[in-house]
Structures are given as C-alpha cells and as structure tokens.
C-alpha cells in the first residue's frame, strides 16, 4: 500500500472522487492551477480542466453560496475554505442555508452533495487567525454533518464518505498533521462511515475521547498513563455531528470515567455537549466527574500557544486526577 501524508491522502481522495463522477467539482481561493495554499488540490485542474477545478474570487460567502446552488442543481461540489478561521463570512450560507435546505423544502430540494473542506487547528504558530477549531460553532446546527480525520488513512476514507454522503458536510482537516502524519493509504475508492466513532484502543479504567490532531496528543498522554498502570480506552469521535452517543456511552458504562479533549476554548466547546449527554446517560456509573481538557477561554494566542493548548501533559493529568478522584 502506498505511504502518503495527510495532504496526499486528501488530494488522492479528491482525485478519486473526480475520476469516478464528473459532477464532482473542487473550487476555492487559490485551488486552481496553484493547487491551494497547502497544495491539497494539486494537479486537479491540470487533470480535470478549469471547469471542474478552479480559483474563485476571494469571497467565502460567495464560495459557499455558489456551492449551495451547485449542490441543489445536482452537482457534487467540494468547496475549500483556505483556513477554518475564514469560514465565518460563510456562516449564514452554511447555518441558515445548507443546513436547512432540505427541511424547509420538505425534501423538494436539498444540498446533500455539498462538502466544505477547511484546515483547522493550532500548533503552527498561527496566532488568532490561523489556528482556530470552529467545529462547535457548527455543531449546534441540525442538518449539517461535521467530520474530522486523525490520520491519512482516515482522511481519505472519511473525505470520500463525506463527498458521497447525501447531506451537507463540513470536513475539518488538522493542518498541523498535513505533512507530519504519514501512513499507508489504499489507492482505491474506500469510504468510511459518517456518524460512527472508533474505539482505537480498548481499556477498562477510563475513556479518553477526542478527534483530529488531538488524537495524537491523547496517544502520548495515554502512553504515560498506561505506564502508571491506568488502562485507557481511547475513542476517536470522527464525526462531531451527528455524534455517536452509543459508542461513547457504552465505553463509559464500562470504564466509569471520561476525559474529553479539544483545542477550541472550553466554554461552548463540543466537550460540553458530550459531558452533558454522558453524565445523563451514565449517571449511576460515573466514578468521577467528566473532565474537559481544552484550549483556554481566550482568542488563540501566539507566543504563549504552548501554554494555551491542551497538550499531552494536561490530558495525562486529567486522566490521573479522574482516576485518583
């Protein structure tokens, strides 16, 4: 199986989808001849022509509005937003339009073919506006699906899953891992299911849950905890909306403890939703409070990024405290 980094896996997924269906289109700022500022769409214009892979003017609300229209028409647009921090000008088109298109028309029309890709997350010295993790802003919106992959294999399979899913899907890519994460990626068209969390590692003492780049952080934290004899069950949520309550609840019923971690600020972050749901589901089984390890309630900083981020040490400490509670 070929080795790919995450960008190559994403590029390969787009290539696969475009080859299989001529209605699949890729567009966004700089995605044309240049292949995107991260090169995720490299060579696609060269291969599929300017009509199917192209630069748009610099206007996110237009990109998503245009994509909504295309999807309603029956095309399968994959729109890129250059950084997740710049998705907010398109917020109305996503939250009021993409998400509600099917419901408001009673399924006369839908934008199920729509996928929006955007690189997210910190750890690259990006400061306020090249670091945000906005998944929770969208997770309050019935009608959307939200997916975050953790490695190249997942990225290709989940992106193909998202493109083929008959619902509008946001696909947030952990840009810190774009080149850092390398692994085996099948060449063929495979699709991972949306809405299913994955138990990556079984354990008995505590459940540790995250998504995207945070899975690597969890891995390190868990390594340390296991050395101290704590058996951790590790879950990658993968789909933030609609999320897989069953898998998480089942795990916590077994372990009695839960740590959830994400980069976004604490307040209003998606860990809150998870904690609220799980404390209800597993009330009598919980042996300690559900812990959230997250970014702080500030805009994303630069010089003090390390202090701000929920690194493996902080996750480890949360595991330790939970077990020692």
């Amino acid at each position: 199986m070929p080795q790919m980094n995450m960008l190559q896996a994403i590029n390969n997924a787009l290539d696969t989808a475009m080859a299989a269906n001529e209605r699949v289109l890729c567009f966004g700022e700089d995605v044309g001849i240049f292949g995107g500022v991260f090169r995720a769409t490299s060579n696609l214009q060269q291969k599929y022509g300017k009509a199917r892979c192209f630069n748009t003017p610099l206007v996110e609300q237009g990109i998503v509005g245009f994509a909504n229209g295309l999807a309603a028409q029956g095309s399968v647009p994959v729109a890129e937003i250059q950084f997740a921090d710049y998705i907010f000008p398109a917020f109305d088109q996503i939250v009021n339009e993409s998400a509600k298109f099917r419901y408001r028309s009673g399924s006369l029309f839908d934008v199920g073919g729509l996928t929006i890709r955007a690189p997210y997350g910190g750890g690259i010295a990006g400061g306020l506006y090249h670091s945000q993790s906005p998944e929770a802003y969208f997770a309050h919106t019935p009608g959307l699906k939200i997916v975050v992959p953790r490695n190249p294999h997942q990225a290709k399979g989940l992106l193909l899953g998202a493109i083929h899913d008959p619902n509008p899907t946001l696909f947030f890519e952990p840009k810190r891992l774009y080149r850092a994460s390398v692994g085996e990626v099948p060449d063929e068209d495979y699709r991972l299911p949306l809405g299913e969390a994955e138990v990556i590692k079984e354990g008995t003492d505590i459940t540790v849950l995250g998504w995207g780049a945070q899975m690597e952080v969890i891995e390190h934290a868990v390594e340390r905890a296991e050395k101290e004899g704590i058996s951790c069950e590790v879950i990658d949520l993968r789909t933030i909306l609609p999320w897989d309550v069953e898998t998480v609840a089942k795990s916590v019923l077994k372990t009695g403890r839960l740590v959830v971690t994400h980069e976004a600020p604490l307040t209003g972050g998606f860990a809150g939703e998870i904690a609220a749901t799980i404390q209800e589901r597993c009330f009598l089984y919980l042996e300690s409070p559900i812990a959230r390890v997250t970014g702080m309630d500030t805009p994303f900083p630069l010089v003090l990024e390390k202090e701000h981020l929920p690194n493996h040490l902080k996750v480890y400490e949360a595991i330790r405290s939970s077990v020692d509670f």
Partner: protein
Amino acid sequence: MTTTKSKVVYNPVFTDGAEFRIPTFKLLKQDGSLYKGAKAPELDKDKALRIYRAMVTTRILDERMLAAQRQGRLSFYMQCTGEEAAVIGSTAALDDADMIMAQYREQGALTYRGFSIDEFMNQLFGNELDYGKGRQMPVHYGSRKLNYMTISSPLATQIPQATGYAYGQKLAGEGHCTITYFGEGAASEGDFHAALNMAAVHRVPVIFLCRNNGYAISTPATEQFAADGVAPRAYGYKMDVIRVDGNDILAVHEATKEARKLAVEHNRPVLIETMTYRLAAHSSSDDPSGYRSKDEEAVWREKDPILRMRLWLERKKWWGEDDEKQLQENMRREVLETMKRAQKRPPPALDTLVSDVYDEVPPGLAEQFDKLKAHIRRHPDEYPKTAEQAKGGA
C-alpha cells in the same frame, strides 16, 4: 499584472459615473398603446393571454388572501401587487425548464408556470399537502416540478446560489439558465456582490432580476443607496445590464428574452433592473402610513401594470369586457372554494417534525422524537392536534 488598458490623464479627475445614466427601456404606454418608435414585440396571443391570466390570478389571490389574513384565517401574507409585470413578464420570457430562485414576492412567476390554487393554499395553510410540510411561514412556496426553488427568508442568500445553480446548468450543457429575483433592499447584502462578481468571472448563464420597488419595508431606496438605482453596479462587474419600466409587461418580456439569449447562447450573465413600486404594504404585518404618503401611492396606482396590459390586449382585440368578467369571477370563486378546502385539511403528520433534517433521522433525533411521543401520550389533552398520532411507537 494589471488588467487595465485605460487611457492616461495628467490631472486628477474624479468621476462618480453620474454622467453614464443607464436609460430605461419602455414599450407600452399606460393607455395600452405603444410608444412612438417602439417596435411591437413578438408575443403571440396564446402567450399574451397566459401572461395576462397569470397577472389577474395573482392580483385576485393577493387580495383574497390579504382579506383572509385580516379575518384571522391566515397568520401572514405578502402581496405582489403592483409588481406583476416585472415578475410575470420576465418569467414568461424564459423556458419553463429554466430555474427560478425568487425572494418571496414573486408568486406571479408560479401562477404563470401553472402552480394551482390548491398548491398555493396548501402552503399558505401549512396543511398535510404543503410540499414544505408546514414548516415555513406563508408565501414560502416551492415547486420541483415547476423549477421554482423553495423560498428562504434570509435575504439575498439565493443570489449566489443562483450563480452556482446556473454554473451547474452550463456544465450540463442542456441550454438552461437560472433567473434570480430580489428586491433593491436585498441587493445591499454582501451575497449580492459575491454572486454578480462570480457570475461575471465564470461566465455563468444567470439572470439577476432586481425588483426596484422603492422600499425595503420602511426604508426608501434613497436611504438604501446613493446611486441611480441598482443597475450601475453591473459596470463594476463588467456585466450586461438593462433597466426596464417594471410596470411595462412588453418591455420586461422583451428585455428578459434578450437577456436569456445573452446568458444561454453567450454565457453572459445579465442584470435587469425593473423600476416598479410596491403598491401594498410590505406584508400583512406592516402599515406603510408611517413612512410614505398616500399621494405617492396614488401616483403609482395610476401606473397599474395589469390595467396597462389589459388595454393593450383590448386594442389587439384579444380581450374584452366579458373575458375579464368571467376570469375575475372564476378566479374569485376558485380562490374561495380552494381556501375552504385547504383550511379544512389536517396539518402535516407529527413525524414531519423530525424528517428531512437529514436524509434519514439520526439516532439522537429519533430518541428525542420517541420521548416527545411518550410525553404527548401522557398529556393528550394538552396536544389535541397530535395526540392521536403519538399513540403507538416506542
């Protein structure tokens, strides 16, 4: 790399474009005769009557439904009154397979395409036959079969969507285009700018039709923009533009027919600004007496687009007093009867609360729905309309 090949000047000259006033295209005088020099448009009798019937039907529907709203039978209504020519004249110039993405005041387009009074009523009353399943406020129509995109309340969002839709039509290569309607108020939204610019850059077969009816709720066009209407914005995107007397059915029809050619045959998007007037209140919730004068309204009432067309038809001997009487009576009766029928129909089923959020109801939502049903079962008297349907199930 600059794109400009403009000439050079050695004095700092500022211009605001005021000298480039875009003219207004007219054909039909209020008395039903053509302007001198106006070429008679190609519009055969069948089509002319289809247009006229749609205009009258729209007017009657609007009058009746506003009355129904006043009687408390309906929660909300919006009239097309005064703008029938702008809407119907343009829709009639298209192929029925072209896509329409409207704002909310374009029921005339639907009437023209053949949306039945039943279909209107089902939406207005949100009954079990409403395609939108009783989820949206009245006048949020949609029809897949008639290529009329379901209305969405957030203004201007449909404009860039129309660009995208039309881009898809261009790729499909079947010779179709999209028209999108919007008010001069909605044209202030950022989405408008995005839509026109993208359409011009990507040479998309889309027609942007602005109904400049003078007001956005209470805000007069003079407080909406400083420019001479919306038309001059086309220059900023290098887009073909035409301004039309929006109460002149022949001019609107002719302009749109030509615009469609530019769009479909030459991939040139077009902006059409129709100059018209919102004769009624903004909606049934609005009272215009707080922000405009009766005199101003009276001036525009004199320019009624339906009467103008009728006079033209009469001159052509295509229409007479009896035809008019019969159409009016039939439509009034049909509207009333249909209204009664629609109002009696049951509301959409309880499970439409959770369907169509996604292609399938996800587990979490299914669970919420089960809980809701159980709750209703415990309090059937509190939910008289849905108690019966909550029986059975988890």
